[in-house]
């Protein structure tokens, strides 16, 4: 895929922006691609439907905003409802199965879900939900190299939490791999 547009949405505080940052960093620093990230600011980044956008490309990126996301990761119902229409009935939707109930419209959207909050809680900290989701995203899409993603997770989370976050990443990744079997 020459150019992929990605949107991550959720509540402000769920790590929406950090998630996009990690994918962008993995792509541009550890996977030899170009990645431009833009994000919500203001009140929406602090509690309501927050969104981060990412363009990943093999070539230099000019226009910095996404027009129609190929991939959307939804971690809250409000975020899903606010941005679902931008997909225009196509692409990949990845969502938190306990927090998002997608509509049953007959579109060409491929849907994948994971109870990432529950998995994070079982690992001991709900806050790593977004990293579980990143592991799941990596397995579902194959867009970014697995090791590049792990490297980006390791170098982006607070010091001392690397091991826990990598465990979260693995759990998300394995969740999809097991499903496939």
């Amino acid at each position, binding site marked *: 895929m020459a150019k992929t547009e990605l949107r991550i949405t959720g509540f402000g505080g769920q790590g929406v922006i950090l998630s996009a*940052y990690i994918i*962008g*960093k993995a792509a*541009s*620093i550890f996977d030899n691609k*170009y*990645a*431009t*990230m*833009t*994000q919500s*600011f*203001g009140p929406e980044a602090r509690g309501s439907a927050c969104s981060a956008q990412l363009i990943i490309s093999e070539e230099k*990126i*000019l*226009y*910095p*905003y996404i027009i129609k996301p190929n991939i959307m990761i939804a971690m809250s119902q409000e975020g899903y409802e606010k941005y679902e229409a931008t997909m225009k009935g196509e692409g990949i939707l990845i969502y938190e199965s306990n927090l998002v109930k997608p509509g049953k419209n007959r579109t060409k959207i491929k849907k994948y879900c994971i109870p990432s909050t529950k998995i994070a809680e079982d690992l001991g900290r709900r806050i790593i939900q977004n990293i579980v989701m990143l592991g799941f995203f990596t397995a579902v899409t194959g867009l970014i190299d697995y090791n590049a993603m792990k490297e980006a997770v390791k170098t982006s989370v607070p010091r001392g939490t690397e091991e826990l976050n990598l465990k979260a990443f693995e759990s998300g990744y394995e969740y999809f791999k097991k499903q496939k079997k």
Partner: protein
Amino acid sequence: MKADPIGVLTGSHYLDGDHACAEGAIAAGCRFFAGYPITPSTEVAERISARFPYVGGIFIQMEDELGSMAAILGAAWGGKKAMTVTSGPGFSLMMENIGLGAMTETPCVIANVQRGGPSTGLPTLVGQQDIMQARWGSHGDYEIIAIAPDSPQEAFDFTIKAFNLSEKYRVPTMVMLDECVGHMTERVIIPPAEEIEIEPRRYTKLSPEEYLPYKPCEDLIPEMVKAGDGYNVHITGLTHNEKGYPIINEEVQAVLVKRLVDKINVNAEDIIITEEEEIENAEVIVISYGITSRVARMSIDLARKDGIKVGSMRLITIWPFPEKRVKELAKKVKAFVVPEINAGQLVYEVERCACGNANTYLVPHYGGGVHNPQDIFDKIKEAMK
């Protein structure tokens, strides 16, 4: 002179434009920062406040932007490379002391992460509406230098350049980012310190008895001293002679103000940085800067696919304006198309330099977003008629 390795985070980073600007400043040797937080520039200040303790810098959150600008002028005369950062109304508040900086020929850097105005306008959204204010915002006649980066990488590279130009020409120099570039995150490669060229301050070698603080060298720039070095200097915003003493008459005014203007204009070719693409056979040239130049590139691709011979001129330095080059090009092309996220500002300079030889078309955008590439493409088509 090479950069001090202590301030250079060599390596590949994933940074937004604001953070990249902060890293550029630190790499350039900035060790004094005074500012007042304002969206969307706050991240520059945040990054500097987090990094300064490790490089021996002084960070002050001031009471407002007037104080911030005054503080960096004082710090420069105290021997530091100094910077402030702001946006929107904060830029307006800095104007009086930017004039003081121009009059006292104080090297300093002002980063303005532009948001939509007027007034408080669009705090979190993009604008390019401070282009004329950057040049004309303070009262009186003077010249400044302004640079408009279009990516986080350029925010790093050209903040260093801004410090260097500011030292070389002893003039307040502005890094005119915009909200889009400031809040956009991309790969930024920071080279090793030994690959970063730094312009040292132009300190005098003359003795205190021989030294005159405002006696210009051949390139019209006087040499500096710093407080505490044993030189008796008088620095004033009043019209002053070579000794720095206030002389209120038209003769001294003519010598001083003419030099403040000339020192930039005479050296313009050394300062100006532009990027030209497929200018040779172009019938229309798109002149753009900052984030708009990236959007315009898409429009140019659309036009070329349509068989239109369109060239691109991107202004990296916006002030001084590349007057000579635009005048030359005006004789070769049918028209200039100038997209800006404002109601028309730099377009007046293009129009002036076109001297009626080429038509000039503005593609305005009132702020809050970037152009739709189609709008610029449509204007290119209109310009071809």
